[in-house]
């Protein structure tokens, strides 16, 4: 068995209450879903419900000053049901990300939502790829942790970048499967496995969430089968032809992938291994002799 296969077949012990634990919070659902890009807020509300997610991400943006007739997303989010995870999307410097995180905390504190003390930290390096800026992410993580935040940090799938972010004090590290919104799934399973190994070494409950790149439900299952604690996605649901049905599929995929991981997969083999016994076959099997003939 190769090292990769050995990793894939790693046995994990299923606890009777299998939960996604992030900091002080525990969730049954291992999906975190975004609230962006929906055609309507009604559709968003229904898709969020179908996903069974308990954590949803939101962005922090300027109020529109002259058009106050628009609907607010808050009218469509049941705050007793969801923990809101504010993001710092659109920030390209640590300074801006820290400002946005604090503004998000100020709003969620007013709403008395338990998401007030945490943030999905994104410090982007480039508008075209939306890949994270590794130094900016580290800098912002340190500053936000010092300010009392629980930081869930978006990272590349580089295992060393991931471990440095953990060392900076992040509560969870969220390596990207592929670029945000690209729908390419988990492009480098080996790197995700290395992230999992390094981040969980001596700290098996440290949460690692695959964030970004999901295109279809199978991508979620793959991430979960690799041993990720959860998956964060948005576009794959919001831009599906039928977002509500896709949200349901994502929910099932997360459960299936988690169970598959916990159950422990078989090693991959080059040759076949028959499921039906050879003994008692009435036909000739090449290379063997049927007794009595």
């Amino acid at each position, binding site marked *: 068995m190769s090292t990769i296969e050995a990793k894939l077949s790693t046995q994990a012990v299923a606890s009777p209450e299998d939960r996604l634990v992030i900091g002080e919070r525990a969730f049954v659902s291992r999906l975190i879903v*975004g*609230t*962006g*890009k*929906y055609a309507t*807020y009604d559709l*968003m509300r229904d898709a969020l419900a179908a996903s069974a997610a308990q954590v949803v*991400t*939101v*962005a*922090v*943006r*300027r*109020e529109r*000053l002259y058009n*106050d007739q628009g609907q*607010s*997303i*808050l009218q469509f989010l049941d705050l007793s049901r969801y923990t*809101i995870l*504010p*993001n710092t*999307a659109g920030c390209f410097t640590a300074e801006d990300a820290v*400002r946005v995180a*604090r*503004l*998000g905390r*100020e*709003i969620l504190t*007013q*709403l008395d939502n338990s998401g007030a003390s945490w943030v999905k930290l994104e410090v982007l390096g480039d508008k075209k790829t939306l890949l994270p800026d590794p130094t900016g992410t580290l800098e912002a993580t340190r500053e936000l942790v010092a300010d009392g935040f629980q930081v869930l940090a978006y990272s590349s799938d580089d295992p060393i970048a991931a471990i440095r972010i953990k060392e900076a004090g992040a509560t969870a590290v969220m390596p990207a499967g592929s670029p*945000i*919104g690209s729908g390419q799934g988990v492009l480098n399973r080996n790197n995700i496995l290395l992230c999992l190994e390094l981040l969980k070494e001596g700290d098996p409950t440290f949460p690692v969430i695959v964030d*970004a790149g999901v295109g279809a439900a199978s991508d979620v299952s793959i991430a979960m089968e690799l041993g990720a604690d959860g998956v*964060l*996605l*948005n*576009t794959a649901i919001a831009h599906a032809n039928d977002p509500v049905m896709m949200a349901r599929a994502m929910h099932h995929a997360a459960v299936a992938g988690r169970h598959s991981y916990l159950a422990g997969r078989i090693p991959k083999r080059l040759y076949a291994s028959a499921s039906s016994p050879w003994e008692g076959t009435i036909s000739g099997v090449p290379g063997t002799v049927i007794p009595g003939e």
Partner: protein
Amino acid sequence: MTVVANGEKREVGEQAKVADLLGELKLGTAACAVEVNKKIVPKLQHSTHALAEGDRIEIVTLVGGG
């Protein structure tokens, strides 16, 4: 006096507080956060924090995002 709110110049009264500006913008009851010159003014201080000439004010809320 003139302040800059969300990138746009705006005239406010000489004694204007953050809450007065929010009221003028019909945002008095909205779930929003306010930053004046890159420092957050918590909601509890909206009615007491006085604005000054040239203040740069950001008023933000939550929107859909991933």
